[in-house]
């Protein structure tokens, strides 16, 4: 753990009210937009997620973070005060997806792909020319 704690902070972020703050050390994955029905309802629109190794993520104000088990495989973390969506965690994989929207600019991140487009909502079109996958990513992309 010592080497992780000494690694420079790659990004910081926080919810809308500031009750939950995060620091991420080490690499962040490129941003992926998820069009699945669960994400659409929980975020209110298709969300943009980066991803990091859990041990590289430090959470301040964790008592204000509420987890909702949204399926057998995953849970979603949001601020119980302002409702900001912060995390999607596939349980037991040692990684966590982080809402790109909570990160402080400049993020240095780019969106690279859309997933679960087979479940896309009808109120928008995807027009950015990026890769579109009908379902999930392969393990090598995660």
């Amino acid at each position: 753990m010592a080497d992780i704690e000494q690694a420079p902070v790659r990004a910081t972020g926080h919810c809308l009210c500031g009750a939950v703050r995060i620091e991420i050390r080490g690499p962040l994955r490129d941003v992926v937009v998820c069009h699945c029905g669960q994400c659409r309802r929980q975020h209110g629109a298709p969300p943009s997620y980066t991803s990091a190794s859990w041990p590289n993520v430090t959470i301040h104000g964790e008592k204000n973070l509420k987890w909702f088990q949204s399926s057998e495989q995953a849970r979603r973390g949001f601020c119980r005060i302002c409702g900001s969506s912060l995390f999607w965690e596939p349980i037991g994989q040692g990684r966590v997806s982080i809402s790109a929207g909570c990160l402080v600019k400049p993020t240095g991140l780019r969106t690279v792909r859309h997933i679960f487009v087979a479940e896309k909502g009808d109120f928008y079109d995807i027009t950015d020319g990026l890769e579109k996958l009908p379902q999930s990513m392969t393990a090598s992309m995660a």
Partner: protein
Amino acid sequence: MSDRRATGGCLCGAVRYQIEGALASPSACHCGQCRRAHGALGVYTLAPAERYKIKGGRNITWYESSPGIRRGFCRNCGSKLFWERVGSGQLDVTMGSMDQPTGLKISKHIHLEDAGDYYDPPSR
């Protein structure tokens, strides 16, 4: 007024709503507040006064995000549902919470000057 009715609700089902009549084309908001709250764009249509009903309203937590403005989400599952100018009587409703098909399409992008840096915002 048409006899259309839109329905929707949060991910866990603790909050449900219905809106009577035709709805305005949604707007997509790129502002920093929406980006943080939603982890996405804020995509909303408008439920006019006296045309909407909410079931399970006790499960909504309201957060005052600016003076006179509050955002409503389900306290159980965190789903973002509403944006309200307090006292206006009308309610902005997230398109993502609406049951499919909605029959609506985003017609306007706003606050593009405040967009996130990890995507290329549309030019309008």
